């Protein structure tokens, strides 16, 4: 497979603290790669290293199949990025901000209006950025990252500070980029739901380590929710369910039905009622990202 980004044993230590350790990131061409992890997991540190803003303690980075150390300039010509909070020059207008960058990346002037249009910031183009809301700054940052029409777009928490309609807009924009512009996108987030709605490939990082990297479908298998039942005489009820040949777990008096279809859940409830148990509550287990992390790390240790 052709990888646009590939890291080998990438590590970054700050003194004793290992911000990133032994990271093997593989981003295939044309994918939207969701880089997922809680705050402080090492996402931004990794992205900074990918852009050469920070030097790795050890390991290797290949982008477009070229070594970042040797070919940094040629690689960055084909990369657009938005790192952490949006970067801007407060004393300049939105257009002037883009113009300062355009002089360096050398695109035609028309491109400034195009990218402003893409992020719907045309109306505010001549206003000073210091008066912008966080959402507008974020849009400007995304516009800036698109300025050189990159082949690889790296967006660190791009929907930060956007309102719900803005999030949807940006999400649709990002989703359209691979097919319309042939871009490969790396997008980081600490929100599973956000990655779930955009990404085609997912890498999950925690405490600087990649604990999962695969297609979004593979991750959904992990993330599947189970249904919890609170019933009278839970121990007996659980045995009854097992007796009916259903998969069920018992934890603290709560019966859980992992990965069940609607019909199966209905059947289980019906069975319990028929057997004379009182069903107090049927609820879906809300599994946070943390829970999935915990599950994944547990499985990693077990394996």
């Amino acid at each position, binding site marked *: 497979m052709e990888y646009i980004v590939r890291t080998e044993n990438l590590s970054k230590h700050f003194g004793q603290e290992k911000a990133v350790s032994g990271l093997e990131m593989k981003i295939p061409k044309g994918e939207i790669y969701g880089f997922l992890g809680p705050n402080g997991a090492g996402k931004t540190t990794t992205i900074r290293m990918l852009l050469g803003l920070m030097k790795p303690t050890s390991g290797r980075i290949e982008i477009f199949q070229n070594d970042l150390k040797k070919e940094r300039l040629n690689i960055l010509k084909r990369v657009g990025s938005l790192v952490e*909070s949006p970067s*801007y020059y407060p*004393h300049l207008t939105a257009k002037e901000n883009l113009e300062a960058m355009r002089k360096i990346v050398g695109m035609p002037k028309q491109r400034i209006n195009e990218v402003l249009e893409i992020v719907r910031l045309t109306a505010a183009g001549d206003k000073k950025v210091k008066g912008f809301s966080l959402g507008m700054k974020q849009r400007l940052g995304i516009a800036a990252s698109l300025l050189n029409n990159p082949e690889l777009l790296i967006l660190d928490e791009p929907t930060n500070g956007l309102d719900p309609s803005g999030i949807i807009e940006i999400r649709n924009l990002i989703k359209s980029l691979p097919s319309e512009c042939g871009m490969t996108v790396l997008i980081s987030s600490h929100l599973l739901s956000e990655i779930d709605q955009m990404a085609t490939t997912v890498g999950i990082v925690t405490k600087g380590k990649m604990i999962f990297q695969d297609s979004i479908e593979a991750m959904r298998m992990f993330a599947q929710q189970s249904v919890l039942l609170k019933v009278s005489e839970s121990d007996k009820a659980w045995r009854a369910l097992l007796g009916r040949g259903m998969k069920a777990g018992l934890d603290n008096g709560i019966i859980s039905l992992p990965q069940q279809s609607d019909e199966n859940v209905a059947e289980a409830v019906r069975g319990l009622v028929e057997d004379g148990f009182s069903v107090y509550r049927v609820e879906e287990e809300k599994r946070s990202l943390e829970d999935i992390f915990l599950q994944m790390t547990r499985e990693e240790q077990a394996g």
Partner: protein
Amino acid sequence: MLTILKSEWFKLRKSNIIGILLAGPLIGLGAGIGADTAEAAGMMNEWYMILIYMNLPYAVLFLPLITGVLASFVCRYEHQAGGWKQLLALPVTRGKVFAAKYVLILLLVLFIQLFYLAAIAGAGLYKGIADPFPAAIVWKSILGGWIAAFPLVALQLWMSVWFKSFAAPFAVNVVFTLPSILAMNSEKVGPYYPWAQPFAMMYPATENGDIFFIPWEQLITVIGGFFLLFYLGGYFYFQRKAV
């Protein structure tokens, strides 16, 4: 390199730099107008007299201090809201960004020197000096002061890249500039003290056969040496700086 410089110039042009550029020459102008040059009338060219009066506040204090203000200024908007990381994630090398900022400050210092030249002429005209304008010597002074600022600019750029705050580089600058008042009166220290060089190079001495008002050896070893030291220090710091 040229594209980076153009971008830097663009960012600077849109900020309120002009007041800072004019402050020094105006201080000089004030000193020149207030100077009592009458006593020298007939004994020496009155232009020298006025130049000496004007140089005192300008070359001893203002010129060294302004290098720091300018360096902070061209780095301030990078520090403010993540400008460094956006700039350095573009296809640029850090060496060229550092060089572009350095050249930009040198250009600004040159502008200030030229404004100062205008201030000299202005003060002289105001006083109605009849003596012939010593053009060659004044030029030596203007260009000499500019060259003497090279190492100071390099050190201040280093400090400004390093510290996010305006105050820290300025404090460093003041701490080194104030002793130059003492240093320039000392024959031992004066010629070697970088912050005393602007005054030395702007002070219109009698003809000494050199192009500038200090000996070549001093120009090359002290100004050139400290320039290399400070520039390379800042350059290597910037190369390794994590943004």
